[in-house]
């Protein structure tokens, strides 16, 4: 087992009176790809920002290589930023419209390697541009001259120019065309192999997650409801929410002519639950105990954790209506 790179414990984030992250703990190891799956309102993007201390959590710790990022002084935090990078969802919005692509990619170099002269920096910028699949001649252009996929490559270039240990991808391919998504994901996989970096891949797209991850975290309304190795999650999901998510993914009929499985009916998302399990009002398996107490995250199989009172039972698969 590789050494633990990131250790998150009991993280809580409030936006005013609203608890967006309600106690999240997990580990991430060097070189690992950990995916975080959830829908809107789950708090997954907030989690990314909390880890980077782009906002201040109310409680909890984020230990990166042993240093608690939430409590260390600002200068120490900034020093760590070279090893902990992020790629955002909206490719164009994450680039400063007034800076050329070369300047954007070169900025981390200016900050962390001030010893480099302009020429050396330019060289590194061009190399990185080529590495992400863009021509180095484009370094003088502005973000609005590029397509979505190209902008995302630029964002990735900026994130990897200093070879970080951990790359957080916050819905990095969600706004891209399907035919481009694969390109970007393969690029991320290649870079990861080459640089040995770990990835925290945040997405709502289970299909993409399946091909990318070593382990998967499933988040619902601010809490982790399931943690599992990738194959185990897709083959034998435990938590009812995970199962509902998997069943809801629309399928293209395969060449065998099998019809797309129908999706089970679900109720609308309620407002914040005050007691018990947050998922109980939508859960087809809910019992009275689910209202009384919130289920803790328990290990149901080696490396496989679920927060459900009924996780030890063999629940019937969600019925497929004709």
């Amino acid at each position, binding site marked *: 087992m590789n050494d633990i790179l990131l250790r998150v414990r009991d993280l809580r984030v409030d936006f005013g009176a609203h608890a967006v992250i309600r106690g999240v703990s997990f580990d991430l190891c060097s070189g690992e790809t950990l995916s975080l799956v959830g*829908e809107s309102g789950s708090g997954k993007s907030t989690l990314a920002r909390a880890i980077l201390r782009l906002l201040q959590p109310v409680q909890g710790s984020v230990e990166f290589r042993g240093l608690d990022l939430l409590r260390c002084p600002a200068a120490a935090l900034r020093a760590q930023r070279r090893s902990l990078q992020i790629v955002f969802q909206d490719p164009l919005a994450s680039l400063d419209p007034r800076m050329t692509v070369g300047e954007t990619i070169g900025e981390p170099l200016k900050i962390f390697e001030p010893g480099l002269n302009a020429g050396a920096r330019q060289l590194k910028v061009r190399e990185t541009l080529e590495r992400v699949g863009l021509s180095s001649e484009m370094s003088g252009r502005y973000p609005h001259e590029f397509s979505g996929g190209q902008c995302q490559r630029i964002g990735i270039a900026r994130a990897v120019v200093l070879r970080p240990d951990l790359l957080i991808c916050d819905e990095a391919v969600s706004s891209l065309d*399907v035919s481009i998504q694969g390109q970007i994901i393969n690029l991320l996989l290649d870079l990861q192999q080459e640089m040995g970096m770990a990835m925290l891949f945040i997405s*709502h797209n289970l*299909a993409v997650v399946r*091909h990318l991850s070593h382990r998967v975290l499933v988040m619902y309304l601010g809490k982790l409801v399931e943690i599992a190795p990738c194959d185990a999650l897709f083959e034998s999901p435990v938590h009812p929410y995970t199962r509902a998510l998997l069943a*809801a993914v*629309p399928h*293209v009929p395969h060449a065998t002519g099998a019809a797309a499985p129908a999706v089970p009916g*679900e109720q609308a998302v309620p407002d914040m639950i005050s007691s018990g399990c947050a998922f109980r009002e939508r859960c087809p398996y809910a019992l009275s105990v689910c209202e009384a107490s919130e289920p803790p995250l328990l290990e149901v199989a080696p490396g496989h954790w679920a927060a459900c009172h009924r996780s030890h039972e063999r629940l019937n698969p969600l019925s497929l209506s004709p």
Partner: protein
Amino acid sequence: MVPTLSVDRLRISFSYRSGSVEAVDGVSFSIAPSECVGLVGESGSGKTQIFMAAMGLLGRNAQVSGSVRFEGNELLAADASTLNRVRGSQLTMIFQDPMTSLTPHLTIGTQLAEVMVTHLGMPWKDARSIAGHMLERVHVPEPKRRLNQYPHELSGGMRQRVMIAMSLLCEPSLVIADEPTTALDVTIQAQIIELLRAVRGEFGMAVVLISHDLAVVAGLADRILVMYAGSVVENAIAEELFKHPRHPYTAELLKCMPSVTGPRLDRLPTLAGQPPRPGETLEACPFAPRCPRAADRCRLERPRLEGSSTSQVACHFPLA
């Protein structure tokens, strides 16, 4: 039998100070009554513009030529009053982001009732009561309460249900759903697709489902049109399209879509290059730069849409 919608050689271009950009390049197809057609394409394909033109919603800098007939009547040249009679009652549209397409300062009940008062001359009280019934039919919980609420008080999924309800009030012949689930979560998306299926069964109107996601369309469409760079490249019955795609772009698109079932891959299949930006018109096949089967003829001559009534393709070397 008169087709519900008949599009013939539709061309749309937009003029800017720097020149004009062609978004839709000669598109022809028709939709039969009660048929559900999926229109699939990525950014720059022009799929939304076709129906914006049909509804008369394009900006002033748009130049449209060709013909769009709704139940035999030409829409493109129609004057405002004719168009207003048809829009919102017989020919309705559901947009991608229900937050921006619902008026924020009017209650749901008012907006729904307004449709019937305007188009059917109904008194307000009756209209509100029918609105309540329609909300029930689209499975909005507590419909009476919702009538008095404002759009921002509802979740995204519920707003979309309200939009669907609104589009059905006057028993339309054709409902255009433009990326109705793209802004929604996967679990809500599944519900909305289910709702559209049920509603179609109940009301029997024709539906156009526009999406960039073939999988979403797969759950609903009888027939699928695939668009690329402003033209239709394939037009086939859904089952056929998935089993035997004939255009290389369709085949690649199907391959590119990662699935939750099936074997796990180390690298995702990709399609090299990117879709041409709107305005990059070529004499050749627009897909040629990215096509694994491209030959010289593809780079010189534009293929035309040809084939039988059940399957048409625009390719010099279609698959199987």
